[in-house]
């Protein structure tokens, strides 16, 4: 399986570089500009529109949480959807998967290699963004007043990764289950968007409170406190659990599926 994993990583090397550079936009811009907007942001702390979007901008940790910890994983989750659905359903649709599954490799190894390759790729992206965040923070640290340390910031960015893991594995499962990439990507994107807005609105709308546990972003605390003290272990556990269950389902359905024919898992034996 290591051979397959290596190939999967090689296929992703351009994506890893491109997405890492793209995601570094957040710390390079939003952390770097903080000294020049700090006073202004402090004045916007209580605006309801920001609160409705889950944003609190009063302090530097609040700013980091509201901008970096929320939006960076949200954008990174798009990579999770693209990778998760493209690597399986996409390859199946364009016919490349047939060349792989006819090699002497068990199917569980094929999908496991793809999952691990995604995990490694996304971890590299988060490591790059965390490192760049740390470097940018060190360059402005003398210009701002904050109790946040570089280690806090590095950990805060890395601890947003489980959300990306959950979305990536959910997308992989949908790709293994669905007969088309488009359909899988559509569902995964809907889950992501609904999770983001649902979680934010649930904070200010009591009608949505019962549904809050269903939103993935419920388990990503973007408050200044979380940036300082880290994510709760329970929240990380839920996101990792969603990812692992999704992966297990992906393996289950990929093992059963008729490939290359656009068939759903239940489209098997109906001899009339």
């Amino acid at each position: 399986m290591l051979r397959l994993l290596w190939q999967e990583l090689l296929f992703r090397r351009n994506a890893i570089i491109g997405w890492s550079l793209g995601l570094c936009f957040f710390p390079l811009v939003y952390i770097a500009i903080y000294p020049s907007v700090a006073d202004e942001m402090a004045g916007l702390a209580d605006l309801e529109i920001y609160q409705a979007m889950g944003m609190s901008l009063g302090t530097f940790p609040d700013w980091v949480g509201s901008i970096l910890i929320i939006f960076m994983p949200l954008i990174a989750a798009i990579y999770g959807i693209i990778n998760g659905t493209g690597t399986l359903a996409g390859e199946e649709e364009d016919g490349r998967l047939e060349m792989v599954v006819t090699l002497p490799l068990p199917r569980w190894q094929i999908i496991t290699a793809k999952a691990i390759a995604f995990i490694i790729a996304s971890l590299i992206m988060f490591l790059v963004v965390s490192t760049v965040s740390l470097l940018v923070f060190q360059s402005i640290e003398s210009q701002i007043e904050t109790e946040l340390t570089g280690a806090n910031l590095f950990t805060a960015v890395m601890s947003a990764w489980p959300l990306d893991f959950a979305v990536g594995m959910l997308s992989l499962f949908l790709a293994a289950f669905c007969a088309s990439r488009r359909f899988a990507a559509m569902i995964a994107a809907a889950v992501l968007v609904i999770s983001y807005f649902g979680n934010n609105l649930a904070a200010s709308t009591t009608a949505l409170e019962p549904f809050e546990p269903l939103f993935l972003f419920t388990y990503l605390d973007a408050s200044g406190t979380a940036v300082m003290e880290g994510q709760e272990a329970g929240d990380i556990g839920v996101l990792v659990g969603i990812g692992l269950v999704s992966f297990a389902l992906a393996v289950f359905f990929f093992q059963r599926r008729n490939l290359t024919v656009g068939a759903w898992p239940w489209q098997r034996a109906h001899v009339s």
Partner: protein
Amino acid sequence: MSEHVIETRGLTVYYGRHRGILNVDLNVEKGEVFGFLGPNGAGKTTTQRVLLDVIRPTSGQARIFGLDCREQGVELRQRVGYLPGELALYKNMKANQFFKMYEYLRGQNGAKGYWQELAKRLDLDTSRRIGNFSRGNKQKVGVVAAFMNRPDLLILDEPTGGLDPLVQQTVLEMVREAKADGRTIFFSSHILSEVQAVCDRVGIIRDGQLVTTQRVEEMVTQRVNRINMIFADLPPADVFNIEGVTELNRSDRSVMLEVQENLPQVLAAAAENNIQDIETINVSLEEIFLTYYGKGNGGNHA
């Protein structure tokens, strides 16, 4: 189930309510080139995909080298080379990168680097990106990938599609050489001349059912020739009333015939009637299927 290289029993595949193949019983012997023939949509590709465990059968059993295609798929695929009919490759890779990857994933077991020899033989520039290749060159990549581990069984779905005539001949030579090495080839094609050139036996599938298997020599004797002849003056209507000959069309100065036997008599009659030009038309395999298996043969029209 036994010493056959490929053996299927009652193999049936349905996609929901759509028929794939129905009760296919097939035996392919060790060391033979078996032509698997049939019109588009007959079930050739479905059968091949079941053999390689890409598709799971609704019912029935398929074995290769005595191994169950589903339960022991990994083990048997180590001994199989496959060229799909709808070849899809990694466009961003160079051909040599693709072969190295394939070699790497497959574990070549003594055939390491053989792809270079094959690529040279097919005149394939492996330093170029696959995405920049013509259809023929992509097909060469597929052919090399199928042969590169010297497999005991080759499953080739229309291997000469998109290739120029010279390369087609090279591929057919490679098939013959594989057979000479004692390897087995399961060969799907629409081109009768190819089948005639390399296959020992053929199986004909139509509407998902295996209509017959027979030796190629038997099939060739049933071959139909279609001839279009142009005369100085249109000959009398009864000139070609010859056994095994059917006049299909007559217009202006030309006569089109379908000739199943007595070709010398046809040519003699044409010469006596001042023939000026003659053209032979290759009848597609599908037409031969329809001619031979059509009316009065159980209603199995494609």
